[in-house]
């Protein structure tokens, strides 16, 4: 039995898969924040390059991956697919557990899968600098890495609680040549406004996005880059799931359960969309596709499916998605990359349509699973990825109880080598089991999350 299934560089997928082509009805369009009318490509031109806007709105099934991008992706792709035999043995489960290991990328997660093409398209259109936000620091490191390769400048607004928790992420961005600023900052009007109200705020992804968008809009040579949520980001990540399909095919396997953690939803989309497409088009209608989120920020399980802003200040277009309200500042859980009030509109749509099943877990049980994973498979995963590990472990335990020999596939989206303070807090018994008081909020109907 093989432990890891590898593909040759030549076998790396040559195009990205767009799930919009396989949706039964079109997506609801994003709306212009000021007019409330459907946004048109021109509305986004001041922050995004045309090709990314095209990809954002495209319904074509495939987009070719440019040669120059493919070339860079081979620095770590195709990524290995592992069979977690030692974890299976520890769980005494008849289930087969596979995971796609995205922590092999230089910055340590799936994020460069989209950072590289985003930097590439921006450079192609003459942009010299990118502004972005980062939660866990994985995205900031990835865009810093990518812009460096294309000789561009990069400014990263890093959510302050993460900035304080993980000083080495900032150092990594510096090594790659980017500037990293704790958010909220005094550099932008939106950051200043938050600081005026609340100088001690831990910050949030929603706030950091406002700052980066404002920075990009204010500078002619600068565009904005988003590491999650948007359709084109999901698109770039589908290389993960396509590889996984090829890898599983070499051992004549198709998964019964496909699992990923959801912050904005893109690593989940990346692994699961090729499988979700096959599910919707009837090729594999039975696949159980599971999106895992933190109980502290349970967008998909407890949120409202509605139009809302992508950021706190209300600068982005309104998107129809599951949301806890754009003004919600999630508690400072250690999975910083999952602290987002909304979720990818595509992932939201699949949840709404019943194609994807969302689940939520609390911090301590997530870290418990991560520690078990480290002690069996050796990899110390990022707190975000640990959510997927936890769901996979639970599915495998269910199989032990029912005797089913299911094949479980999860996305291991990144390593936790900068997250040891979180593990330390777990071992010290200091992790708080936050949860979102959804029942209390729901009861007061007039106070549903503020949406556009």
């Amino acid at each position, binding site marked *: 039995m093989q432990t890891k299934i590898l593909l040759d560089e030549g076998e790396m997928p040559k195009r990205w898969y767009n799930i919009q082509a396989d949706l039964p009805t079109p997506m609801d369009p994003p709306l212009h924040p000021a007019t409330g009318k459907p946004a048109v490509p021109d509305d986004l031109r001041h922050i995004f390059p045309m090709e990314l806007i095209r990809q954002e709105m495209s319904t074509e099934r495939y987009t070719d991956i440019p040669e120059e991008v493919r070339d860079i992706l081979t620095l770590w792709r195709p990524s290995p697919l592992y069979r977690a035999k030692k974890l299976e043995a520890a769980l005494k489960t008849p289930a087969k557990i596979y995971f796609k290991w995205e922590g092999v990328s230089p910055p340590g997660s799936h994020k460069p899968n989209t950072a590289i093409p985003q930097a590439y398209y921006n450079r192609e259109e003459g942009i010299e600098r990118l502004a972005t936000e980062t939660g866990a620091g994985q995205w900031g490191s990835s865009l810093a890495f990518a812009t460096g390769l294309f000789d561009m400048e990069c400014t990263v607004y890093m959510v302050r609680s993460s900035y304080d*928790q993980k000083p080495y992420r900032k150092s990594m961005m510096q090594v790659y040549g980017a500037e990293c600023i704790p958010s909220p900052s005094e550099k932008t009007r939106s950051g200043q406004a938050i600081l005026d109200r609340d100088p001690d705020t*831990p910050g949030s992804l929603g706030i950091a996005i406002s700052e980066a968008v404002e920075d990009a809009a204010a500078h002619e040579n600068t565009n904005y880059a988003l590491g999650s949520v948007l359709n084109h980001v999901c698109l770039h990540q589908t290389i993960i799931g396509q590889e996984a399909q090829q890898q599983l095919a070499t051992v004549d396997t198709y998964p019964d359960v496909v699992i990923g953690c959801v912050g904005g939803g893109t690593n989940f989309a990346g692994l699961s969309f090729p499988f979700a497409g096959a599910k919707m088009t009837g090729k594999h209608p039975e696949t159980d596709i599971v999106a895992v989120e933190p109980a502290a920020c349970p967008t998909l399980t407890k949120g409202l499916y509605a139009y809302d802003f992508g950021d706190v200040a209300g600068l982005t277009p309104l998107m129809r998605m599951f949301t806890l309200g754009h003004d919600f500042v999630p508690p400072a859980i250690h999975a910083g990359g999952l602290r987002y009030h909304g979720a990818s509109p595509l992932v939201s749509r699949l949840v709404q349509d019943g194609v994807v099943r969302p689940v939520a877990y609390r911090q301590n049980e997530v870290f418990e699973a991560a520690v078990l994973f480290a002690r069996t498979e050796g990899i110390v995963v990022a707190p975000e990825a640990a959510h997927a590990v936890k769901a996979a472990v639970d599915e495998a335990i269910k199989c032990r109880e029912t005797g089913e020999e299911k094949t479980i596939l999860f996305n291991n989206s990144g390593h936790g080598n900068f997250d040891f303070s979180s593990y330390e807090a777990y071992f010290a018994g200091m992790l708080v089991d936050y949860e979102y008081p959804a029942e209390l909020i729901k009861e007061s109907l007039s*106070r549903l999350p503020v949406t556009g």
Partner: protein
Amino acid sequence: MTTVGFLVNPIAGMGGAVALAGTDGQSAEALRRGAVPRAADRAVQALSALPGQDVEWCTCAAPMGEDVLAAAGIDHYTVLYRPAVPTGAADTKAACRAFLAAGVDLVVFCGGDRTARDVFDAVGREVPILGIPAGVKMYSAVFAVNPAAAADLIHRAGEVPCRDSEVMDVDEEAYRSGRLTARLYGYACVPYIAERTQGGKQVFEQQDEERAKNDIAAFIAEIMIPDALYIIGAGSTTARIMERLGLLPTLLGVDAVRNGEVVARNADERTLLTLLDEHPRAKIVVSPIGAQGFVLGRGNQQISPAVIRKAGLQNLIVVATPGKLAATPLLYVDSGDVALDREVGDSLQVVSGYRIAQRKRIVHPE
């Protein structure tokens, strides 16, 4: 340089070893049963652990302080009060008044709940107080967790923030006959150090108790439903909800609110039951009370099992600041109605911020 007023209740803590619950009015009996004064040992432990000598000490003569300072190797101090022997509550209060007159920055005492109450009676919120735990049982939240923690807090008294901490009134007579009644007596200012982990997360969230109370109050005010009755329990966290609504809270008692107006102030159980007859749609908002974190059964006795059953257990909303929750890893439920306690289950959701809650484990004593 901080000036600290230091006193020991020499008879505190004697009862436990000889199976008396508390030593109020019982010291002779405790001594007869062979108890040895324990408070002094605990206090010596704490003060010996003090790293430097940058504290100016004011104290009381002989067993009420001086002996302990000397045993801990502290030789510079001023004796401000000389008690009669045997010492009593009046001496504790008189000593505190002497400390205040001398302008101390902090009053440190070694004793139990009763001593805490006496110190609080005299000092109020004028200066911070801190207990070195030595009593038989401590329900008040004014004590450091152990002598070493007390030493750390005394050493850093000038730099660390203070927070509101419950002083409990424990009826020792009743306790000795097997009943525990612990009422919320007041809120003292107590220095504290937020738990620090490398993650920095806890620091963020515990830093500011006031901010947390405001966030909780904002959230509860936001989710209030028109026409429903809100029974607001005792304590400084729930009081903030009242203030948020522009209402005057009863810090140590229970208020009832409906449509933004007070319908009963400092209500007793009967009043609450009558109100629930009129307004069956109701929510009860309580905060864990005391050092142990009692959600039910201590400090909120007016919110009796009958009141809770009438409103419905599912309508109980528990609120507490992250700092309080960090200090009480487990919460307790002891309503006096075992079946009701059991219905609460093994865990409860506790609102700890604006649209933020924590899941906390519940313990049923005994």
